């Protein structure tokens, strides 16, 4: 076992995985740095590529995009006051004032160092926590798995959108859509409405690209178009304005450690993700800062806090996916899809059935951090130029990438039709505040949930009592109910407080 772990960790040092990670990081930085597009779009578009390479290359490549995309989102936040991703809002609050003072280089270096710090922290947590936790979850039977997924869906559904009911409906409709095609237990074809293309079910990749990428392009195209004329940005000639010194590092270290804890904790909970982590870390940094009056005017610790926290969610978000087989957010849902494309089902057994691969991926996570630091630092001037690319170039290319991504997995024009349909659905979901992430998670969890449901039904001879007579499923179902009630109460209270203020 230890030999497998060590050889897995070492396997990432071969040329293929290293090239894959570098490509992933470059892509993530480019997509993150350009306002209007994001790392998750890059993951969705490049997902089909993982089908053509070994999982040890493809999955670390996607992880590279994930991590670099989050940092990339901070580049436009710092330089243009335009957060490339929602978690970068706090980064813009401290980074842009530094840019205005001519210290864009210092801001970018601070953000990069804090991001990599948070990344390494959460990766180590993942490596040391996931495998032991999987020993416990390995003992779960079908009824327990069913109940765990109920809990995950209620948490994901209730958090990933402004309305609990809408979030759970999205997850429910995602599961419903996942039942289209052949039934795993009986082999019957379901809900294909005479379309033979639907026998294999709706393709994951065109659906994901349609829901995540096209709505953003539609939003940008439909927005009243006013291109901001930014003055040409450049790094300062004074080296002191561009450095994140050892003194700065020592000053920010307690904040970065605290923020990494916050990010890792929130990242490990299904449905939360990077945005709340960044906001919580920022407010905690301001509360505990020696110079709180500097916040909002370019405080380096104020910049380091959200950066460390939002990147610390990336490794931790994989804990529920690898130990329970539950994706915590839309990115891990797509990563789970990447595993499934390769015929690997994430869950506790992955540590025993694919030890070499999983520790290779863990090695890849650490390598991503190192390469992110090196590549991002080398290309600051390039990222500055990219963040100012005109929209007509970006979105015409993104449209083509979406089509190529959707077509490539089955080489079928029906998949492109699926892409467009889900693009339209995604646009209206955004407009009416339905969560595309919850839909995707439901779609991916659907077959796993159905398998657990069918197996439990077979064991209990079709009786639902199996879910209510065993202790562990009962505990999870009660937790699901408690989580829905407590979130509903919190929201109701928040609404009342807001109404009282008005």
């Amino acid at each position, binding site marked *: 076992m230890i030999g497998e772990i060590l050889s897995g960790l070492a396997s990432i040092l071969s040329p293929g995985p290293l090239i894959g990670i570098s490509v992933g990081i470059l892509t993530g930085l480019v997509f993150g740095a350009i306002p209007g597009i994001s790392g998750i779009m890059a993951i969705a578009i490049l997902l089909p*590529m993982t089908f*053509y390479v070994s999982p040890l290359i493809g999955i670390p490549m996607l992880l590279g995009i994930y991590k670099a995309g989050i940092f990339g989102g901070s580049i436009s936040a710092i330089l243009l006051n335009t957060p490339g991703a*929602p978690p970068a809002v706090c980064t813009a609050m401290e980074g842009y004032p530094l840019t205005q003072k001519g210290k864009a280089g210092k801001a970018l270096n601070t953000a990069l160092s804090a991001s990599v710090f948070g990344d390494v922290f959460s990766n180590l947590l993942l490596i040391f926590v996931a495998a032991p936790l999987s020993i416990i979850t390995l003992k779960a039977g079908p009824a327990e798995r069913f109940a765990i997924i109920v809990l995950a869906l209620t948490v994901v559904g209730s958090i990933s959108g*402004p*309305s609990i*009911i*809408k979030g759970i*409906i999205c997850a*429910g409709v995602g*599961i*419903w859509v996942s*039942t289209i095609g052949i039934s795993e*237990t*009986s*082999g*019957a*074809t*379901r*809900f294909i*409405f005479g379309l033979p293309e639907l026998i294999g079910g709706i393709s994951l990749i065109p659906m994901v690209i349609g829901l995540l990428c096209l709505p953003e*392009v*539609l*939003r940008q*195209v*439909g*927005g*009243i*178009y006013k*291109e901001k004329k930014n003055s040409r940005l450049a790094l300062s000639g004074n080296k002191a304005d561009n450095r994140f010194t050892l003194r700065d590092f020592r000053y920010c270290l307690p904040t970065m450690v605290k923020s990494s804890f916050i990010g890792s904790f929130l990242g490990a909970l299904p449905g939360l993700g990077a945005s709340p982590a960044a906001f919580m870390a920022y407010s905690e940094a301001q509360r505990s800062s020696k110079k709180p009056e500097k916040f909002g005017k370019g405080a380096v610790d104020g910049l380091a806090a959200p950066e460390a926290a939002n990147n610390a969610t990336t490794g931790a978000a994989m804990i529920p996916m690898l130990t329970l087989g539950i994706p915590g957010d839309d990115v891990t849902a797509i990563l789970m899809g990447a595993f499934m494309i390769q015929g690997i089902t994430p869950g506790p057994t992955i540590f025993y059935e694919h030890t070499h691969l999983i520790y290779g991926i863990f090695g890849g996570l650490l390598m991503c951090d190192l390469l992110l630091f090196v590549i991002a630092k080398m290309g600051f001037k390039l990222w500055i130029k990219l963040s100012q690319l*005109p*929209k*007509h170039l970006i*979105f*015409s*290319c993104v*449209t*083509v990438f979406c*089509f*190529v991504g959707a*077509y*490539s997995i089955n*080489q079928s*024009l029906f998949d*492109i039709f699926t892409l*467009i349909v889900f*693009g339209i659905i995604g*646009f209206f979901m*955004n*407009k*009416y*505040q339905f969560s595309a992430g919850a839909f995707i998670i439901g779609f991916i969890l*659907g077959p796993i*949930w*159905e398998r657990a*449901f*069918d197996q439990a039904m*077979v064991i209990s001879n*079709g009786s639902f009592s199996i879910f209510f007579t065993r202790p562990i499923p009962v505990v999870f179902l009660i937790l699901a109910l408690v989580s829905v009630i407590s979130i509903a109460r919190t929201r109701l209270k928040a609404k009342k407080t807001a*109404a009282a203020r*008005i």
Partner: protein
Amino acid sequence: MKRFFNQGNRTDVIIGVIFFVISFPFLLTMHHFVSGGTHSSVSPLSFPRFVVVLVVILSIVLVITGLLEKPASGKASAPDAGNSTPDINHVNTAIYLGILFLYLVLLHFVGFVIATPIIMLMVAYILNGRNFLILAPAFTAFSVGLYYISMKLMKIILPTGIFFE
């Protein structure tokens, strides 16, 4: 009727009704949409039925909560405010959707290499890209490059078009 629509969150009520109108009849008739398969102790419809019942219940809850909710006084609710586009040019959105369908048709008939630069120019045009003398050759080179990269590196043959097969 007018008073009814002035109360509550009208959008949620309408969406809830749409979900109900789709899911409830589907629940009642779903056995018509299953065919083939071997005998199994668990029906292929057990799980979908369970999920659709859930959706039906939640759509009713959405309608009820929508009716009970006080109408929003502002333009957008706080969590959404940051994400929404304040002014949407529906003409541009419709044109872009038309371009997407046109791209699908062009891919089928003339293939990737010819369809792609045309579509890219159209998308660039609606986003105020007007320097066609630079864009046209750049987009053509991009399409040809992408076609060959897909073919050589990923072994994916992008559509060649039925006119050229």
